[in-house]
């Protein structure tokens, strides 16, 4: 890796380890995220994806290893520290208040003018943000309960952008979504990349990963199991890296197909 490439990285992890009691959840994890790059983290259940997200968002501190953010070695002891650094996390459950409207949710906890809320400025800023994301939300004055899953994901992502983060972590952003809504969220990820953010996307869905990611980092049993350029890798290779075996249903079918074609 050249030194030039190093300096492009907005976030670098080196040798991150974390144990919970007798279980080594993460061992010697390395990860690089550049500005304007989408890194997909894939891995089986228990591979350590969530632990990695929690370390980056300040929920758990790592036991050892180095986090370099913006070419400075940093520590992320609390969620607030992550927020201050410019690492925003959108958790899978989104954490929106259904009884509040879109503006109220976007600015929750960081309202403008605490003693006499500045509704107008907050509404204008909400529209700016949603327009930048080309979000398809008809009105920001409706309670979040009336929005679709994709729209809620949009609101959650827009909220994480309010603090002008440099890195945004999306935890399974398309897990509960339908076809159209998944496309909407993937568009959004593209939009984040265009804005020059580093995006870390946890996903189980190979199609999504192939669609938007630049780099795929595979975790297996808490260790790095390969970092691939998404253009050079087939879904089968990724699945092989995830499961740690080349012999599985997907590769077998692939092999049968190839045989069928050649014969």
């Amino acid at each position: 890796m050249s030194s030039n490439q190093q300096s492009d990285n907005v976030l670098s992890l080196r040798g991150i380890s974390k144990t919970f009691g007798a279980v080594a959840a993460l061992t010697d994890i390395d990860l690089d995220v550049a500005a304007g790059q989408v890194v997909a983290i894939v891995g089986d259940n228990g591979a350590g994806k969530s632990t990695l997200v929690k370390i980056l968002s300040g929920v758990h501190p790592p036991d050892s290893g180095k986090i370099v953010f913006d070419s400075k070695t940093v520590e992320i002891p609390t969620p607030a520290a992550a927020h201050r650094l410019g690492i925003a996390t959108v958790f899978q459950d989104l954490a929106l208040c259904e009884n509040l409207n879109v503006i109220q949710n976007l600015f929750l906890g960081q309202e403008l003018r605490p003693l006499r809320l500045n509704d107008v400025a907050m509404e204008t800023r909400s529209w700016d943000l949603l327009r930048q994301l080309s979000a398809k939300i008809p009105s920001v004055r409706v309670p979040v309960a009336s929005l679709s899953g994709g729209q809620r994901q949009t609101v959650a992502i827009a909220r994480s952008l309010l603090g002008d983060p440099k890195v945004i972590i999306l935890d399974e952003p398309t897990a509960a979504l339908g076809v159209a809504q998944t496309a909407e969220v993937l568009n959004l990820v593209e939009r984040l990349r265009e804005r020059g953010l580093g995006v870390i996307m946890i996903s189980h869905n190979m199609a999504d990963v192939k669609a938007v990611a630049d780099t795929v980092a595979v975790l297996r049993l808490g260790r790095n199991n390969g970092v691939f350029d998404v253009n050079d890798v087939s879904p089968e290779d990724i699945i092989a890296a995830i499961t740690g075996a080349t012999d599985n249903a997907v590769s077998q079918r692939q092999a049968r197909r190839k045989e069928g074609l050649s014969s």
Partner: protein
Amino acid sequence: MSTTVKSTATDRQDERLRSQEGLRGAISDVVERARGGDLGVIPVVVGLIVIWSVLQILNPVFLSSANLVNLTLESAAVGVIALGIVCVLLVGEIDLSVGSVSGLSSAVLAVLFVSQGLPVWVAILASVLMGAVVGWVYAQLYNRFGVPSFVISMAGLLAFLGLQLYVLGSKGSINLPFDSGLVNFAQLAFVPDWLSYTFAVVAAVWLFVSGYLHASERRRAGLSSKTTSMLAIRSAALLVVLAFVVWYLGQTRGIGWMFMLFVGMVLVMHYLLSRTKWGRSVYAVGGNVEAARRAGINVKAVYTSVFVLCSSFAAVGGILAAARLAAANQSSGGGDINLNAIAAAVIGGTSLFGGRGSAFGALLGIIVIQSISSGLTLLNLDSSIRFVVTGAVLLLAVVVDSIARKSRTSHGRA
């Protein structure tokens, strides 16, 4: 294309939005919202009309000016308690001990003021402080040990009733002197007619001016806004209603200062709940605690503030009740006060499930409760029937709340 974008407000550009402007738009908006289960104050207004019509038919004295003046005075004390209940219900909790706390507050006031001979303001301050401490203790128990609030406050209900009896001592009843300012304030102090009309005009003008400033700020920011004529209609309507109320109540004694105090508290709470960061966090905690916590809201502080407010309002209610009665006795804060306060909050549209409701709900709710109570008293029915009817109305209000919640879920507004 660009011209249409320019001429449309930022928040009206989505093609899926049906244009809803002017008076007709405003009305159809309300109908639409109600159908979706976002009932707001509609049930309580409808309920009030029904109850008033029935009681007026049963007894023509009911809607007389004298009776309505009485009704407003009677509703102030429990109304203030209901205001506190609204706060705890908004975060999805409950305080069942407000009756006992108000009774204890009455007793503390009477003992300090009459038996100990302290100045009245010291006695009032001590009573309110006592209420605040009670709320703080509840909040500590809730935050630290996670005891459900209904259990904490149920224990408080009994404990503070006991404390009230202890404070009152063997006599069991302490009369407040009739010539004291406190009793005078609660029983004889009425707002002069000219001042009442001034209040009405100020309220209407203020509504118009603040609405106008807000609308022009929105226009400058390129957002849709209410038209000036709409604002004028709204203010004029408010003026007519308020002026009529002032005129009708002015036929006899007019509007009591105690009721004005209650209305003032409602307005202050309305502002705090709807226009401040604190109010937003109260609704957020009631809607989704985990989301509020992750948004950086100090959830424990919100719970603490709400419990302290509720018990303090209960103490203020107790003071007003003692002043109105000119006495504190063993039954102060007892009987149906507890349930009436909770019923008033719920009838006023505050959801028992948290996150929904408003300060005005307490005002409207207590007027409904007090109307029933006053109407049944006028009919010479004894308290057995009054209890049954109030219980039934509370049940009805909770049923309406639950149905509205279901409707919101099915209309995607939950």
